[in-house]
C-alpha cells in the first residue's frame, strides 16, 4: 500500500499558486483541489540549493546532501585540461551520494520514481524508474526494470514522442519568442504532462509502492516563456487579446495539473501521506548580464577567433565558452552555471593565475563583480557572489566553479560575446527564484503554515514518512511540528563507490570531436540566452 506520495513540480512557486488556489481576478479558482490540500495540510516556502538550478536541486532533494557532496552542479560538466576545456553532460553516474530510491529499496521499501532528472542511465531500484530529460529514442533502454517499457507502451494513448524531452524544442528556452509562438509552446506541454500522468496513474495502481514519486516539469517550461502572463506584478492594466489568450492557455495547463494531482491523491487512498515540492521557485528577469563579455573587457578572458567552418560556427553560437584557453584567466562555462571558474596555472608558463596569486585574484574579481552596475539606472546587477567552499562544501567541491553569481534579478547570465555587458530584455523572462514550494497533507501531518524549509529537509521528511530512520549524514532535518510521530536518526547514506562516479578524462581523450558532437545537442540545454 502506498504510504508516501511525492509529487514534484519543477519550478513551482507560491507567487503563482497562491493566486491559482484563490480567485483574485474573477477567473474562477484554477486549482481547487490543491487549494483544499493546502487548506487541510501544511505549507512552507522551500529554499533551494545555493544555486537554484534543476539538476543540482533535484539531486539534493534525492540525496539529502548539498551539491558539493553529491557532485552535480549543472546540466553540463567542464574539465580544465590546461590547453583546453572539455565539456560533457552530467548523468546519473556522476551522483556521488546515495539516493532515497536506493535507501528505501535496501530497507525493504518498494518505490516508483518518474521523470526526475539525472536518473539516466538508470540505477538499480526496488520497483520502477523512468528518468526525465531523456529523448524518446532512448526511453526503453533507460527504464528499470526490464520490460517496463512494454508495460508503459500498452497504456492507452501512449506516445513516446509526446512524453519525452525534445532537445531541439527545449533549446528555445530563454529566447525572445513572439506571443503566438509562446502559445504554441504552452500548448505543446499539455499532452506531455498528460502522458506522464497516465504512466503515473497506471503504475500507482499496478505497483502500489511504498514510495511513489512523480515529477511534472511543464510548470518550469511554461513559466520560463510565459512568465509575463502569470506574474501578478506584470499583469497589464489593459490586457491585449493575445495576452488574454496566453493567460487562458496557461491557466488551462494548471487546471489540468490540478486534476492530475487530485486523481493521484485519490488513487493513493486516504491512508497515504502526500507531499509536494519544487526544486526552485520563479520570478521575472528583465535584465541580460553578459558575464564573459565583461571578463573580456576587463582583460581576464580572451575570445577565440572563430573560423568559417560549419562546426566552428556552431561551436561559437553554442552556450558554452569558446575561448582562447592559452590566455584566459577566468570564464563562465555555461549560462545555467551562473559560475566563474578561475584557472590556476599548473606550472610556470602554463595558462592561468599563479597559485600564489589565487586568493588576491579572486578577491579582486569578487570586489569588481559586486560593483558591476546597470549603466541606465546605476543599480548593482549582482546581488551576491558565492565562494564555493562556503556555498558548496564537500568532496566534489572541486568540480564547481570558484564563484557562483546571484544576479540582482536572479536571472541566468549570458556567455555570448555581444555588447553591451548589461541590457534590458524586450519582455521580462521567467527565471529561477531560490524559494520554491512545500506542501504536505494526509494522516499524521500537522496542518498549518511554517517559515521557510530547506530543499534538503524534503528527503528527511520522505524517509520519516516511510517509517525509516533519517540517515545521520542528511544535511536537512524533519522540521519540528510537521509530524505527530517522533523522528529516528539512523546510519548514514552511502557514498557511491569510486568508479561508478565519473573518472576525470585524460587530456588526450578530450578531443574537439567529442566536444563538438556533444555541444551541438547541448545548445539545447543552454538556458536563458538573449
Amino acid at each position, binding site marked *: 500500500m502506498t504510504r508516501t506520495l511525492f509529487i514534484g513540480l519543477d519550478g513551482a512557486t507560491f507567487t503563482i499558486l497562491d493566486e491559482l488556489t484563490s480567485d483574485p481576478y474573477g477567473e474562477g479558482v484554477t486549482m481547487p483541489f490543491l487549494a483544499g490540500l493546502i487548506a487541510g495540510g501544511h505549507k512552507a516556502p522551500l529554499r533551494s540549493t545555493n544555486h537554484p538550478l534543476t539538476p543540482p536541486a533535484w539531486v539534493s532533494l534525492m540525496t539529502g546532501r548539498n551539491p558539493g557532496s553529491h557532485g552535480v552542479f549543472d546540466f553540463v560538466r567542464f574539465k580544465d585540461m590546461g590547453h583546453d576545456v572539455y565539456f560533457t553532460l552530467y548523468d546519473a553516474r556522476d551522483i556521488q551520494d546515495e539516493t532515497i530510491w536506493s535507501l528505501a529499496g535496501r530497507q525493504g521499501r518498494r518505490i516508483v520514481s518518474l521523470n526526475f532528472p539525472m536518473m539516466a542511465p538508470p540505477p538499480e531500484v526496488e520497483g520502477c524508474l523512468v528518468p526525465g530529460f531523456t*529523448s524518446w*529514442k532512448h*526511453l526503453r533502454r533507460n527504464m528499470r526494470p526490464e520490460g517496463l517499457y512494454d508495460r508503459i507502451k500498452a497504456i492507452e494513448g501512449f506516445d513516446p514522442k509526446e512524453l519525452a524531452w525534445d532537445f531541439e524544442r527545449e533549446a528555445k528556452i530563454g529566447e525572445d519568442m513572439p506571443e503566438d509562438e509562446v502559445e504554441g509552446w504552452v500548448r505543446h506541454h499539455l499532452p506531455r504532462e498528460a502522458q506522464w500522468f497516465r504512466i503515473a496513474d497506471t503504475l500507482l495502481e499496478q505497483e502500489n509502492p511504498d514510495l511513489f514519486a512523480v515529477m511534472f516539469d511543464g510548470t518550469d517550461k511554461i513559466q520560463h516563456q510565459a512568465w509575463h502572463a502569470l506574474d501578478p506584478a506584470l499583469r497589464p492594466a489593459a490586457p491585449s487579446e493575445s495576452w488574454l489568450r496566453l493567460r487562458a492557455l496557461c491557466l488551462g495547463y494548471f487546471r489540468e495539473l490540478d486534476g492530475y494531482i487530485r486523481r493521484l491523491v485519490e488513487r493513493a487512498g486516504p491512508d497515504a501521506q502526500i507531499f509536494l515540492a519544487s526544486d526552485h521557485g520563479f520570478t521575472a528577469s528583465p535584465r541580460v548580464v553578459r558575464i564573459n563579455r565583461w571578463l573580456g573587457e576587463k582583460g581576464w578572458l580572451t575570445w577565440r577567433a572563430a573560423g568559417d567552418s560549419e562546426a566552428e560556427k556552431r561551436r561559437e553560437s553554442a552556450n558554452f565558452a569558446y575561448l582562447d584557453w592559452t590566455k584566459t584567466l577566468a570564464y563562465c562555462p555555461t549560462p545555467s552555471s551562473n559560475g566563474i571558474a578561475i584557472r590556476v596555472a599548473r606550472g610556470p608558463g602554463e595558462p592561468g593565475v599563479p597559485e600564489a596569486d589565487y586568493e588576491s585574484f579572486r578577491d579582486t574579481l569578487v570586489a569588481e563583480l559586486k560593483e558591476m552596475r546597470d549603466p541606465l539606472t546605476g543599480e548593482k546587477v549582482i546581488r551576491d557572489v558565492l565562494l564555493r567552499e562556503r556555498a558548496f562544501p564537500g568532496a566534489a567541491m572541486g568540480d564547481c566553479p570558484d564563484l557562483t553569481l546571484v544576479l540582482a534579478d536572479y536571472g541566468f547570465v549570458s556567455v555570448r560575446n555581444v555588447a553591451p555587458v548589461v541590457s534590458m530584455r524586450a519582455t521580462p523572462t521567467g527565471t529561477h527564484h531560490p524559494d520554491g514550494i512545500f506542501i504536505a497533507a494526509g494522516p499524521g501531518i500537522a496542518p498549518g503554515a511554517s517559515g521557510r524549509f530547506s530543499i534538503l529537509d524534503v528527503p528527511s521528511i520522505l524517509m520519516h514518512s516511510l517509517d525509516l530512520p533519517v540517515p545521520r549524514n542528511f544535511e536537512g532535518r524533519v522540521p519540528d511540528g510537521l509530524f505527530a510521530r517522533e523522528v529516528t536518526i539512523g546510519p548514514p547514506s552511502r557514498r557511491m563507490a569510486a568508479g561508478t562516479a565519473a573518472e576525470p578524462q585524460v587530456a588526450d581523450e578530450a578531443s574537439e*570531436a567529442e566536444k563538438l*558532437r556533444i555541444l551541438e*545537442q547541448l545548445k539545447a540545454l543552454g538556458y536563458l540566452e538573449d
Partner: protein
Amino acid sequence: MDLAKVQELVFEVVAGLVADWDLDAEIGPTTRLVADLEFESIDIIQMVVAFEERLRKRNLGFEKLLMIDGRYVDDLSLGQIAAFLHQRLTVAA
C-alpha cells in the same frame, strides 16, 4: 574478447538502441549509423553510454573513432565500431 564476440555485442547494443525507432534497417557489419539508422548526435552520446554500461567501463575514447585527421567522419558502420572497440579492449587488457 575476440572480434566476432565484439561484433555480436555491437549488434546487440545497437539493435536494443533502435528497437523502437520504426526503422526497416537490417543490423549487420555494413549497417551505417546515419545513413541506415538515422542517428543524430544525441543518439551517438546515448550509444556511447550504452557501450560504457554494457562493458562497465567509462571513457572508451570514442572521439578517436569519430574524428579522423581533425575532421568529423560523415558516417560509421557497425563493422568499424566493432573493430574500434575490439582494438580498444585489446589495448586495455
